[in-house]
């Protein structure tokens, strides 16, 4: 008996031991044969999921060293520039992680990079689901869970960023407090209860900490589990293609090829995050200094939050100096860009599957995906929305742009106030007409003609050429349907 065979026997014995106690073989057998479609765009959600795993692992490591306390200490660690400075215990322990815990800086930076890429992957994954209409019946529940996951992830990113109690994050917390304060009727109470009193105070770090390391991650993990379970139950969507219908699914079996690929992707995502964490500096809090509201004169231009809250910061910057004052009450300015805008944003995202149904009257279950061009209006709306938030995001850097291009910040801000309305309208019409053109001409935007290719036989008839056969230079390409406007291929070509 060879060693390899004995290894196999042990695995078998172990599996049987479990099967006799749990009856696992029936489920396992079905699971191993589960079919996953092979399309790159289905990997984006997996990247997000793997980022979350890395966030948990690196985050647990960081909790061994981070102390969520706002008591003041004098720094005596090994970073010379701040030795002797008064700062909070939280900020001092962040410096210790960065300079005095071996491998601590890599872990901290991996954690931050994982958060940034997690949010990016979530945005791209949502775009994939939106533009291919994967949210339609029967997948509305997973769309709603997905939007909730996005909101929770964004909030948790903000809480985590605020914990370090550096000058920049403290300014961010101050902005968050002011937005809470601006909410009509209940704002004062909301802000005082959530932040533990008038800002600045010493309560928020311990509160944000337990939200950041327990409450929100537990919610995210639970909803992520539900997201996957529902996906498993409903099976994946798939793009249209030869042989694919609403009632079948084409792809590879979970075992072994899909599992190996997916685990490989996990290793690659982690590897990239590790390389970023070691080689690309992110959030160097030691350069910002500690947050002390009484000494916050050090806040200068070029204060930008993490990228995923950039759209909110941009909205705060370009919203004009308006507010509502009536009957002795005030609806303060930050409410509109800071609370109403995200409220509308996430509200529309939540109801989108039902909103679209009102117009399309399409309540049928769908397992075949649209291509973006198949629904020009939806794609146009999606492009307009993306461009709106992109403009807001860029507007969040109006001070940087002003100094780079040597123009007054006022001119830049006024420009963005115009662009934020003009660009989405342009994006809508350009995208809609591009989709219509693509759908009419059946040309793939990134690679020549699509459709099945036919070959003229010696006998004068036509036969379909196998799709896996690479096209030869000069090969005749035609669409599957008869196209009256296209002349037949010239004889002999």
């Amino acid at each position, binding site marked *: 008996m060879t060693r390899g065979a004995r290894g196999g026997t042990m695995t078998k014995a172990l599996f049987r031991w479990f099967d006799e106690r749990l009856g696992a073989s029936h489920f396992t057998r079905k699971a191993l044969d589960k079919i996953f479609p092979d399309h790159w765009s289905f990997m984006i959600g997996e990247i997000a999921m793997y980022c979350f795993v890395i966030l948990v692992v690196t985050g647990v490591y960081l909790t061994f060293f981070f102390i969520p306390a706002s008591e003041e200490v004098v720094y005596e660690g090994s970073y010379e520039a701040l030795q002797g400075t008064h700062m909070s215990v939280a900020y001092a322990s962040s410096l210790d992680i960065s300079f005095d815990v*071996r*491998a601590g*800086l*890599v872990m901290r930076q991996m954690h931050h990079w994982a958060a940034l890429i997690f949010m990016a992957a979530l945005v791209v994954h949502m775009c994939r689901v939106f533009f291919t209409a994967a949210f339609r019946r029967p997948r509305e529940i997973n769309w709603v869970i997905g939007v909730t996951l996005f909101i929770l992830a964004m909030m948790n990113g903000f809480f985590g960023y605020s914990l370090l109690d550096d000058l920049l994050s403290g*300014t961010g917390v*101050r*902005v968050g407090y*002011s937005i809470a*304060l601006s*909410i009509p009727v209940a*704002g*004062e109470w909301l*802000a*005082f*209860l*959530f932040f*533990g*009193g008038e*800002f600045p105070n010493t*309560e928020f770090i311990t509160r944000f900490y337990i939200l950041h390391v327990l409450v929100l991650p537990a919610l995210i993990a639970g909803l992520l589990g539900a997201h996957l379970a529902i996906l498993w*139950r409903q*099976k994946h969507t798939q793009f249209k293609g030869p*042989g694919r219908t609403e*009632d*079948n699914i*084409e792809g590879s*079996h979970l075992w*072994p090829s*899909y599992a190996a*690929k997916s*685990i*490989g992707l996990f*290793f*690659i995502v982690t*590897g990239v995050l*590790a*390389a970023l*964490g*070691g*080689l690309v500096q992110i959030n160097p809090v030691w350069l910002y200094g500690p947050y002390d*509201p*009484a000494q*916050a*004169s*050090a*806040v200068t231009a070029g*204060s930008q939050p993490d990228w995923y809250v950039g759209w909110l910061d941009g909205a*705060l*910057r*370009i919203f004009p100096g308006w507010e509502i004052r009536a009957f*002795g*009450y*005030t609806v*303060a*300015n*930050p409410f509109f860009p800071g609370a109403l805008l995200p409220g509308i944003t996430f509200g529309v995202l939540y109801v989108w599957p039902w909103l679209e149904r009102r117009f399309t009257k399409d309540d049928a279950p769908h397992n075949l995906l649209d291509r973006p061009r198949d629904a020009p209006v939806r794609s146009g709306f999606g492009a307009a929305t993306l461009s709106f938030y992109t403009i807001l995001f860029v507007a969040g850097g*109006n001070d940087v742009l002003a100094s780079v291009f040597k123009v007054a*910040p*006022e001119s830049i*801000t006024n420009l963005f106030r115009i662009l934020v309305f003009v660009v989405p309208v342009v994006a809508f019409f350009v995208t809609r007409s591009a989709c219509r053109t693509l759908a009419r001409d059946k040309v793939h935007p990134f690679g020549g003609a699509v459709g099945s290719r036919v070959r003229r036989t010696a006998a004068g008839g036509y036969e379909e050429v196998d799709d896996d056969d690479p096209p030869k230079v000069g090969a005749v390409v035609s669409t599957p349907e008869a196209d009256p406007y296209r002349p037949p291929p010239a004889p002999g070509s």
Partner: protein
Amino acid sequence: MPAERRIAVLLVLSTLAALGLAAVYVAGGQPQLEGALLGIALTGIGVALILWARGLSTEGAVIAERGPLGGVEEDEEAVEERIEEVTEEPGRRSVLKLFWAAGGALALSAVFPIRSLGPAPERALVTTAWRAGARLVDVDGRPVRTDTLQVGGTTTAFPEHAEHAGDSQIVVIRVEEGAIRPRPGREDWSPRGYIAYSKICPHVGCPVGLYQADSHELLCPCHQSTFDVLDGARPRFGPATRSLPQLPLEIDREGFLVAKGDFDEPVGPGFWNRER
């Protein structure tokens, strides 16, 4: 290179990187090396796995029926029947209502402890630590005197003995005497060109820290609101909707700058009850 060879090279590379990582850690650690080696070790395994996966299965794409997703009339009816069993008798239905009432009351009473999370706002947002006669001191506790600033100069100040009162920080600016266009009732608030405003931006509370002496403008670094120092810090541009509250100043007999009283309006960002 055949796939097996490529996989082998990647895995050997990954092994070496992992061993190197351990060595770097034992030797004292070095962030860049740690990240690079961990990256190589992980990515090597990842790419090798994907190459390996390509050769694992020769079956290509497989296709299967989805099978139905719910909609079996018999099951649905059976479930509905079982649920309705509970409420069939009128007596049971009223007990069920009481369960709902008890549960609702419990949920309602569980809301009240939220009140413990923070103090009542009361007057906290409309008052600061400034009192009549309070000396202006800088962050190190040194008092601000009539000769502290040159014309065009600026400093951050706090009420004496309250140097950490975040809501009381002010920006003190010295401008040319007579340049200020005081608002009615504020004619004697800025002795010898010394004028003081709350440093908390009325937009979202950033410190209004940048002063441009030639244009007499205060600029908020966060969202670029600008305020005209000579005209009661009226907002000129940006999202701020209100002037910076002005602190009334006077000079005491020893030549120190002191406050004549607290601000006459709330400092910082706006809120629902601000006018009350």
